């Protein structure tokens, strides 16, 4: 992906996982990959935390919402204890 590398402060800048690895596809039928981008409660992790680029975060939220619609992922997970 051609793009501008943003540097805020000198910290560890997270790189978009989907940009770094082109073999990694975003697919609503693959909840195992998507689960990585949700909290244990099933909330979608924000871009500032996940480090995804805008394009992929958009695709990701779309995929997670689709996965929720067909019960592959939870809207809200019960507290498992």
């Amino acid at each position: 992906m051609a793009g501008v590398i943003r540097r805020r402060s000198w910290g560890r800048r997270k790189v978009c996982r989907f940009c770094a690895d082109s073999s990694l596809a975003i697919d609503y039928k693959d909840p195992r990959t998507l689960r990585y981008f949700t909290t244990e409660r099933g909330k979608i992790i924000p871009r500032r935390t996940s480090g995804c680029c805008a394009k992929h975060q958009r695709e990701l939220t779309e995929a997670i919402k689709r996965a929720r619609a067909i019960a592959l992922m939870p809207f809200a997970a019960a507290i498992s204890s």
Partner: protein
Amino acid sequence: MRHYETVFIINPEISDEETDAVVEKYSGMLGEGGAFIGAVDKWGRRRLAYTVKKFNKGFYVLFDYGASPEVVAEMERNFKIDDNVIRFLTVKQGEDYDVDAAKAALEARAAKRAQAEDEAAQSAALRARADDETEDEDQDDDEMDDDNQEYKD
């Protein structure tokens, strides 16, 4: 013709034959409407992430096809009526559906599967022959070996 993908969940408590009948029914419906079905993928019974119509499990089926919008609307109308279908989701994958490419992919997949089966049969035959050659002691021993190999597969 547009490229669509439909995932739907069938009642998990009905028998396998009935499940197949439901899948047949909808693939037939698509076929009648002039759709080309590229793939029917039965994922099988899976746990649902949350309860849907009081079910905690569901039989997932995926259709990948090219069709006109009216056909999809008709199928979804029937999904809503059918008590055996507890959830469905249709996603448009693209404006155009390349029937030739889909056909080629379908054939390639069939060929691959046939080849894999061939190879499996061949290797099984080879293994059986190797077993015969190396072990001509006890019949009981042979049987045990066969059992073990099945587990490995």
